[in-house]
């Protein structure tokens, strides 16, 4: 790879060392989940070994030092991966100001996406694995609209919000997934097809070498990379003590913008972002709010306005906005026969105002209607 991204051998060996240290760090970093692992990762190789694996430190160090550069490059090539280190060209500038930035990034997919990650060029979308249909819909729309506006969407391939953000972004272009295991491993395994699509059309990143297995500590470590990569982190849904809030903490510590999507105050799934909003996070209702926060108000306008609705359809849309999630609820709320409610819902779904899940649950999309009061 003469023209591709390059990494110096010492930085590469650091990645392999972290993979070797997986179980040792697991032992000392668990118990206080979250912040401990990234702190450890600030240490030099020798200090890290002394803290995590004092008994076998010399042995492990010798093993890593013995890895030849050609051997490392061969392993990367065998897994269709490449690497870029902090001394190289393609290493994202945004990571340089983080004290615990990874020495090397192992990637699989299109390295040119990293160039699009100038400090304002990307947004990290995170949230709960257990998300509601509201959260999923918002994450998908955010992913899609931001990508369409030329913003790279970064997330973590997890269940729920992460996957929806990736899927939405893929509908409009490329996306970056940061993993807590080697970039050649789909984790969770249920997202194998999504992982494959991102490898083909976007980019999968990790600080761990190919074949590395995930540990509990690698996820907060991955979160710190996600927070540092982009100029803004948006939390879509998260319970009060969710792991997604760790990413938000990292972003705030680094001085990055922090956004949160508001939710019902009674919803446990929205407690995290609602708390962030109370603490001064930027209010994110749609992609336009993100663009305003990153680029300045009005710098880039998104057109999400749908066509004019006839009165009957507008009423059906209002019913969905008021919390009717099934066709039956809409029919009852509007006191319509079932057939008419069904027809109205199908029409506003075709126009893009609502989406319907496989189990018949309707959710409002981010498309605004000309008749709604907010325009």
């Amino acid at each position: 790879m003469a023209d591709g991204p390059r990494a110096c051998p010492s930085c590469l060996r650091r990645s392999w060392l972290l993979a070797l240290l997986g179980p040792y760090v697991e032992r000392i970093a668990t118990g206080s989940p979250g912040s401990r692992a990234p702190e450890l990762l600030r240490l030099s190789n020798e200090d890290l070994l002394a803290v995590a694996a004092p008994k076998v430190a010399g042995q492990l160090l010798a093993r890593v030092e013995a890895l030849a550069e050609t051997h490392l490059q061969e392993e990367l090539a065998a897994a269709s991966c490449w690497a870029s280190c902090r001394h190289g060209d393609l290493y994202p500038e945004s990571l340089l100001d983080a004290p615990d930035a990874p020495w090397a990034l192992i990637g699989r997919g299109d390295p040119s996406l990293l160039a699009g990650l100038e400090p304002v060029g990307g947004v990290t979308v995170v949230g709960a694995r257990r998300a509601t249909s509201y959260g999923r819909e918002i994450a998908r729309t955010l992913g899609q609209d931001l990508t369409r506006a030329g913003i790279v969407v970064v997330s973590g391939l997890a269940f729920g919000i992460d996957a929806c953000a990736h899927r939405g972004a893929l509908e409009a272009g490329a996306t970056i997934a940061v993993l807590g295991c080697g970039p050649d491993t789909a984790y969770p395994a249920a997202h194998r097809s999504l992982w494959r699509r991102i490898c083909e059309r976007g980019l999968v990143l990790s600080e761990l070498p190919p074949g590395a297995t995930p540990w509990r500590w690698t996820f907060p470590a991955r979160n710190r990379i996600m927070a540092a990569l982009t100029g803004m982190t948006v939390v879509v849904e998260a319970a009060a003590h969710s792991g997604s809030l760790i990413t938000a903490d990292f972003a705030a510590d680094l001085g990055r913008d922090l956004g949160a999507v508001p939710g019902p105050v009674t919803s446990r799934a929205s407690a995290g972002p609602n708390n962030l909003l109370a603490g001064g996070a930027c209010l994110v209702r749609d992609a336009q709010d993100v663009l305003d926060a990153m680029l300045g108000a009005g710098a880039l306008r998104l057109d999400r306005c749908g066509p004019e609705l006839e009165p009957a359809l507008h009423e059906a849309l209002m019913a969905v906005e008021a919390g009717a999630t099934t066709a039956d609820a809409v029919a009852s709320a509007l006191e319509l026969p079932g057939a008419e409610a069904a027809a109205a819902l199908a029409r506003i779904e075709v126009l893009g105002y609502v989406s319907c899940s496989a189990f018949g649950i309707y959710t409002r999309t981010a498309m605004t209607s000309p008749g709604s009061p907010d325009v």
Partner: protein
Amino acid sequence: MLATVRTFTLDGIAARPVRVEVDVHRGLPGFTIVGLPDAAVREARERVRAALVNCGFEFPLQRIVVNLAPASLRKAGPGMDLAIAAALLSASGQLDWDLLPRTAMVGELALDGTTRAVNGALAIAEAAREDGAEAIVLPAENGAEAALVEGIDVVPLEGLERLSALAAGEWEPRRPAALPLQLGPNPGTPDLADLRGQPHLRHALEVAAAGGHSLLMVGPPGAGKSLAASRVPSILPPLASGEALEVARIASACGRLGAALSGGRPFRAPHHTISASGLVGGGNPPRPGEATLAHRGVLFLDELCEFRRDALEALRGPLESGEVTISRAGARQLLPCRFMLVAAANPCPCGRGEADPDCTCAPIEVQRYQGRLSGALADRIDILAAVRQPSAAEIGGAPGEPSADVRERVLAARERQERRLGPGRCNAEMTPAEARECTLGTAAASLLADLYARQRLSGRAHDRTLRLAQTIADLAGAETIGEAEMAQALQLRRRDRG
């Protein structure tokens, strides 16, 4: 001496002819039955011996051999007692009846000689007619059922002691009145009026019934899914008399004629722990399953996601073809099973649904649960209805429209379908070629094309939507599918995942 009597054995729901040959000759006294009898047939020895003696006949103290021909066919059940007894009486010279070779006999004997009802008398009487018998002698309890069959004399017999009077011509029983076949539902059956509120669910039920479309209801426990499903037979059109006979034949073979004929179309709701052979039929000897019992009626699968995967997989073929083929080493059976599928499922393992903040299910659990649904049977389901807990006002409100009114509309829609597709067929059975021939208005066509482009519908989903739209148009009495009908169909169709 040798005597032969015709009888029948039940194989699934079909009756197969059997000749009972009895030979009585001198030798060490004994009573042997040969010709692949099962345990119940072999025990006929004891019943026949006691019944003959208790009715005042003589049990010959000679060597008795009973052969059941054809010897390759497996004979099951106690229905051959009467034929064995009659043949034995004839062979030992105690009964002299010219008509005996042209008469079929079935019936179980009690020890005192009275006859007991057998299963499948309807199928047996039909098979006797096909076999060329002029009369069939059978237990009095089965008389009404056998009298449904035209073209054969039906002789109800209370006990073995009447046999000699019958043979001598001293006693001529009247042909019993044929069992009345109930084509429509009974007044006492559950009525759709019990479903209060829930306008969209009512609409989905009506469309499903009108086109014979399979229906899946998804919603939290207690929202009224089972209540709605049990009302589906009451809004289906009444059975045609030929269909009623098919239903009666199956019910008779399974010994549940009384239950099945209580309310027109059958309604079967097997529990989700049922095995594949319990659902589609099987076992050895093969027995009809729930799918066959639901023939011409409704098969309701509650908790669809909890059913065993192999059971649901086994149901796929029969749903498509309307019949089950059971192949065993000995024989092959074709069982009819044209039923309407109604299924219900919870939205997630805890039942509350993802939209409910109290749902405690992990995402992987929900994914696995919904995956179970999409795998096996989802392809065959046309309509999805999301059911929600009715509000207190709705539950306390006025009763809904009664079944009879809905049934009128369904019947009118079915008549339109039969005119277009041929007798007995409905929109759910349209082939893809027929579905593409539906006449679409321009607005409806552009609506469908719009969604097709936006959501990348599969070809199969496209056809399914057309079938649904056609049914809705039939309900509305429209010749072409208008925009409103197409929009309703798009809303009702089952969504592919995602």
